[in-house]
């Protein structure tokens, strides 16, 4: 499996080249183009195992669909009779990160998931009220095992090596290694914390990598809405 990301950071697109027998799982709607020997298999998001896991994945996907406009479905691309390639890009303007996950786990915002190799298990985790990430992050995706992962963001991406403590606006978190602990804290008063889903920051602690995005769709939308005509 080969990866090449071009047109970063505003309009990143990943070209994923597969040898015969390899496959890649891509978020529904993110395929730009592909070689004509690609077979597509559509399935329900996540690779959770067991009935409960599958149910949770479906529920999470449904909630993402309703609140985030994301799709419930994922597509697996497999080249037949030779190598093939798939071009993938997210819907929003922004960058893509490609990461080889080798042991350890990575947490990714559900809306940031773009693609992964089939050997990487992607589980949907209900994070509880702990993770009111910008009002949409009740679920995080958690990787298990080894494999390749592509995630995207809104705007440019910044990788931060946390060693100690680091604070991020909740709407700007994209992904982080599970060696990091996190706590969501109020930055404003109790009312704004409870009512708006804004005014929350996340305090990370420990040692590990953290990816943040320069922009945030919710903030941009709040900027645009007052400009819209009635």
């Amino acid at each position, binding site marked *: 499996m080969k990866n090449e990301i*071009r*047109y970063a950071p*505003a*309009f*990143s*697109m990943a070209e994923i080249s597969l040898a015969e027998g390899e496959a890649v799982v891509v978020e*529904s*709607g993110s*395929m*730009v*183009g*592909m*070689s*004509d020997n*690609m*077979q*597509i*298999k*559509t399935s329900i998001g996540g690779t959770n195992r067991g009935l409960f896991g599958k149910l949770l994945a479906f529920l999470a996907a449904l909630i993402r669909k309703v609140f*985030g*406009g994301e*799709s*419930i*479905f994922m*597509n697996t691309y497999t080249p037949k009779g030779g190598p093939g390639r798939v*071009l993938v*890009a997210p*819907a*929003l*303007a922004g960058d893509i990160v490609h990461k080889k996950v080798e042991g350890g786990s990575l947490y990714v915002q559900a809306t940031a998931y773009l693609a992964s190799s089939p050997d990487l298990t992607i589980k949907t985790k209900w994070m509880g009220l702990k993770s009111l990430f910008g009002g949409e992050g009740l679920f995080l995706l958690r990787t298990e095992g080894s494999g390749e992962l592509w995630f995207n963001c809104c705007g440019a991406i910044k990788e931060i090596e946390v060693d100690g403590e680091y604070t991020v606006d909740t709407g700007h978190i994209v992904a982080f290694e599970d060696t990091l602990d996190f706590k969501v804290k109020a930055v404003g008063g109790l009312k704004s914390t409870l009512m708006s889903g804004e005014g929350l920051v996340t305090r990370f602690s420990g040692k590990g990598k953290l990816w943040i995005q320069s922009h945030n*769709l*919710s903030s941009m*939308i709040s900027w*645009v*809405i007052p400009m*819209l005509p*009635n």
Partner: protein
Amino acid sequence: MDIKIEHKPAFAAAVIKLASGEQFAAENGAMVSMSSNIRVETSSKAIGGKGGLLKSVGRLLGGESFFNNVFTAEGAAGEVVIAPSLIGDVERYDLNNQALVVQSRSWLGSGPGVGLETTWGGMKSFFGGEGLFFLRLSGSGPVLFNAFGAIHLIEVDGKFVLDTGHIVAFEESLNFKVKKVGGLFATVFSGEGLVCEFEGKGKLWIQTRNPKEFGSYVGHKLPPREQ
């Protein structure tokens, strides 16, 4: 005529330097700035002296403006700066007695030796809700086209499958057909819907973002439209 494309790929704009008497046609509303000796003529006629009202109506159906502007440098050299309304890339292609097919929303401008006519993606694309309209540019001279996102060139030799929302332009040596992405289940649920299969040998330009995908993603977060 000298054309420079600046600020690629996010905010691309073209600076067109015209010698005295030279002309350039551009999409209605694309002009950013120009020298004071540039005369602007607005026409509902297709450029290049071809076409007429009917062709213009076709262009309107294709989502393009009914009018286009012809810029002429009068009495001396001058420059025109043009840019698309959306953020994204601009590319240049030089026609030499051949044709280029451009997705109707992607035509930005062209030289006076280039003719323009409307063509479309066939009933299948229409009923598939994709509404593919294309402009066929023919003759000789420079063509500028723009996209939502960056423009990526694919040298097709054989077959290549492209999501319909990502088509920008292609050489006429390529044939295409609109088809389903897989079986019924995949067509309905994959989120990919209809795709375009290009076949032959030639250049295909694609955009790295899909306006519809972007619109529906952002649209979910906007308040509902008042009826």
